[in-house]
């Protein structure tokens, strides 16, 4: 059964244990530029704290709720779409969606065209611009751990239960239960967005105030180009046949051109 992670935004206290666990498990390098940044800084920068060596980040948003000012911490990483745009956009199959949920990337197949980055509905792909031989970098949802019936590194260390690993279907039901219980915003972000994602978010503050792409399409992105690609071979063969016919017809009884 496909796995997923439920993020209960109000439960997050911003301790960033998840980021540390991610770095340790994935052996990501320490990045000088991240040294003095706070969660609030990251929420304001274009990259929202995600860099080639930062696969997940905590972003702090200072919001108003019922007349009181509250802080909300949002964990950012790859959403692991059910039907991912990056997988369908890659012309050399460097991306793959595993049946257990993770969307993984293999640099040895990558040409480096960056069409995946343009196509990603959540703009989370990062490129190693500083390297002579660069690759795309993103959260792999600890694919090797998940394949061995372990949970993801980040969820395994969360002290408050803000991120929970489990079966996506069960988490979705749990999310809806919590929305009712705690009077959250009536939306599970990730249930239908971009055709559904393995990561699901629930919140008591509006998603659009926390850099969520709330107007994203609910149709799976690959469906936008599927028909076109299926029709292409037939159009090609048909058009070539028409051209051949025209060529023969128009050249009948004429001297060939030089």
């Amino acid at each position, binding site marked *: 059964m496909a796995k997923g992670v439920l993020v209960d935004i109000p439960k997050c206290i911003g301790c960033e244990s998840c980021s540390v666990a991610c770095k340790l498990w994935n052996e990501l390098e320490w990045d000088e530029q991240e040294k003095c940044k706070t969660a609030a800084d990251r929420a304001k920068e274009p990259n929202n704290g995600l860099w080639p060596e930062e696969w997940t980040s905590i972003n702090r948003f200072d919001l108003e709720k019922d007349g009181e000012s509250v802080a909300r911490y949002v964990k950012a990483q790859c959403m692991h779409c059910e039907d991912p745009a990056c997988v369908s956009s890659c*012309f050399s199959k460097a991306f793959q969606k595993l049946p257990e949920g993770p969307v993984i990337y293999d640099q040895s197949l990558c040409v480096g065209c960056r069409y995946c980055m343009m196509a990603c509905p959540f703009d989370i792909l990062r490129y190693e611009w500083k390297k002579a031989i660069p690759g795309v970098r993103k959260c792999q949802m600890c694919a090797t751990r998940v394949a061995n019936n372990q949970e993801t590194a980040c969820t395994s260390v969360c002290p408050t239960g803000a991120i929970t690993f489990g079966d996506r279907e069960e988490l979705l039901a749990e999310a809806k239960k919590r929305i009712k219980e705690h009077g959250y915003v009536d939306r599970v972000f990730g249930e239908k967005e971009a055709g559904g994602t393995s990561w699901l978010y629930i919140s008591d503050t509006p998603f659009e105030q926390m850099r969520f792409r709330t107007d994203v399409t609910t149709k799976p992105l690959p469906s936008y180009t*599927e028909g076109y690609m299926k029709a292409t071979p037939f159009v090609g063969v048909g058009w070539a046949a028409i051209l051949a016919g025209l060529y023969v017809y128009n050249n009948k009884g004429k001297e060939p051109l030089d």
Partner: protein
Amino acid sequence: MELITTVLSKAGAKKSTVKWKFKMTPMRWVFTGIAAAAIAVILVRFVLGLGATTNLNDQWPWGLWISFDVLLGVALAGGGYGTALIVYVLRRDKFYPIARSAMLTSLLGYIVVVLGLLIEVGQWFNFWRPYVSWGHASVLFEVFWCISCYTVIQILEFCEVGTEKVFKGAHKYLKKAMPVMLIIGITLPTLHQSSLGQLFYLMVGKVNPLWWTAFLPVFFLLSSFFVGAGMIVIESTLAGKALNHKVEIPVLRGLVKISAGAMILYLMLKITDMVVRGTFANAFAFDLPSIMFLSELTFGVIIPVIIAFSSLSSTRKGLIWFGILTVSGVVMNRFDVLFTGMGKYLNQYGGSYVPAVSEFIVSLGLVSIACLAYLFLAENFNILGSHGSEHADDIEIKDGKYASTAK
């Protein structure tokens, strides 16, 4: 500069010589200078990476090189397949005099595109992966296969011209293969010109609705077809000056009219598309995208149509204006789809992209290389007319299989 190569065709037989000439003019020195600067930047790019030579970033993974070298390069090279269709398949023999030069421009355009892509992609040494690891759900997969195969086809098509002068033995085989190559060579660009537009259809909600439409492939295909005449006018004017060769006005005018016909179809589809999706409000909002959109259509399509179907197109001046406006319109369109179309979305959280000087140098350098190659080939092969192959003088050389002398 003149170079005479002597090739031994049969052991002990007479040697045939071929003359190569290339006269350096001030303009050609300028091209050479830009090309040299570009090659220097390209070397830096391969050693230090894209970050050191471009302003690309995670918000703008595609920039000038993709839009100029690839999107635009392919579109402006559209004159090749269009001419092949009109001349060889539909047999409008009137246009034969421009066929070879249009197809040569197209070939050089594609070589620029392929070189540009190799520089642009991160892992250029992996360029062959899509041949074996089929990501066939990707529109880019189709673009990749079509562009690479079409470039090979175009090289073979040029070999048919080239073998009039060198390796003459292969000429008759290439000539026999021409019909097949021509038909494949029209089918492939029809497919990938439209697919370049379809690439952007995956970026749902990111591209301004003025450009993001299900008609994208049709618009890209039609505009690559009608820009062909504009390119041929400009190219024949420039080459006419440089090489002292002019194409007759009725030939160009005929082409311009065919192109204007395609423009009218394009315009009608644009209007239909706007009606269907209700984007009239966006088009007349008079913000930056709307102004770009309207000027693209007015200067790049409507005015050229008026020129084409009025007496203006019977003068060289009118034709040149048609060329300049049409080409500028398509240039604007391709830049608009990426920069104007996606700017608002990609910059929403403070992202920004202005091409670096080094990016401009590489783009200009690639064009300069293409111009130099065109001039060399047009001067040394039968491209611009005066049909029939050039006969090289036969001279005898006593020994040595190969000799060359430079003057």
